[in-house]
């Protein structure tokens, strides 16, 4: 189901590195969405063992396979995680009507210190998600912060946060580290979100369409300041994005405004 078409551009990849997600509104056709809701209502999905190659993880004709065969989804996933990923796990998350509570802000799994590899989480919304339905809360640019799971639960609201509302068939691909949580569902409608986590099996180096690698918009995307981030720490965020971009491109000399170069300049010193 991999494709070499519909790859992300370098500018789009840089936006992912700075924001921690790539969003595709209404990318899944209505026919699949209409199958998905009753399937999710019916109960659990077939088990997929940790580390199952994607090409063997989901049955022909399954909703999972249908979503991943959509060219825009397949191209974005390949751009981010590379060819032939494995499936870590998948799960349908449900927010019950008027359930009265929200998830604490958290990162999935455990603290993850990798700087030259990352997992991708696909979130698929088969229904239209309105504000009252408690769409997923996420914090753009939080994915490089080193925090463990729900230790961030004290943060109820942050400037610039995303309280997802979206049309049916929306898919969001996220860096594994992004802070997020299911918001309180104050509506009468059961809300579904289907998640698949993917692990890379190859170095994530130039896995996208690099034709625009030298576009000045790449540096502009990587330099964004998020409204929730302290001014001083935002500079460190840019430094860390430079580190990530160097790993993704294999270009150890990449820099923005000399941030990484000046603090590594030690003439005549080797250790």
């Amino acid at each position, binding site marked *: 189901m991999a494709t070499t078409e519909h790859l992300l551009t370098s500018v789009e990849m840089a936006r992912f590195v700075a924001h921690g997600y790539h969003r595709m509104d209404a990318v899944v056709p209505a026919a699949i969405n209409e199958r998905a809701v009753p399937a999710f209502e019916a109960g659990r999905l077939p088990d997929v063992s940790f580390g199952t190659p994607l090409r063997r993880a989901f049955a022909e004709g399954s909703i999972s396979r249908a979503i991943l065969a959509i060219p825009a989804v397949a191209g974005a996933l390949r751009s981010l995680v590379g060819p032939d990923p494995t499936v870590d796990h998948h799960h349908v998350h449900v927010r019950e009507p008027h359930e009265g509570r929200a998830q604490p802000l958290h990162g999935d799994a455990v603290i993850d210190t990798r700087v030259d590899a990352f997992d991708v989480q696909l979130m698929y919304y088969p229904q239209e998600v309105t504000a009252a339905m408690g769409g997923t809360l996420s914090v753009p640019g939080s994915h490089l912060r080193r925090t463990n799971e729900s230790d961030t639960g004290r943060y109820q609201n942050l*400037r610039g946060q995303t309280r997802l509302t979206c049309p049916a068939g929306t898919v969001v691909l996220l860096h594994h580290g992004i802070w997020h949580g299911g918001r309180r569902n104050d509506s009468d409608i059961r809300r579904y979100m289907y998640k698949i986590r993917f692990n890379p099996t190859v170095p994530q180096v130039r896995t996208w369409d690099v034709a625009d690698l030298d576009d000045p918009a790449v540096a502009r995307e990587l330099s964004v300041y998020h409204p929730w981030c302290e001014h001083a720490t935002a500079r460190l965020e840019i430094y860390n994005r430079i580190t990530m971009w160097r790993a993704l491109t294999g270009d150890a000399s990449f820099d923005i405004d000399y941030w990484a170069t000046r603090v590594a300049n030690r003439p005549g010193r080797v250790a």
Partner: protein
Amino acid sequence: MKQQVLVLYLNTSALDAEVLGWANYDGTGRTSPATGDGDEPPYETGVDALKDGWRLFQASQLMPPYPGHEYETSFLKHEFWFEKLE
């Protein structure tokens, strides 16, 4: 006596800096704050909360970065705790 708690996360270590994040806990039970329940901060700065009657009772210390980890980012740094009692 019941306590209402307001937590503000500010742009710098100064109490008059801009609010970047916030949380409420209401010991009176009149409100039920939740994660992701609003996009607009209750105050523009920490001092604005003081002007509205909130009493500051704790502020983050200024901690030097741990050696070897100076470029890592983690929790928000400038956390201020306020209360109202009734």
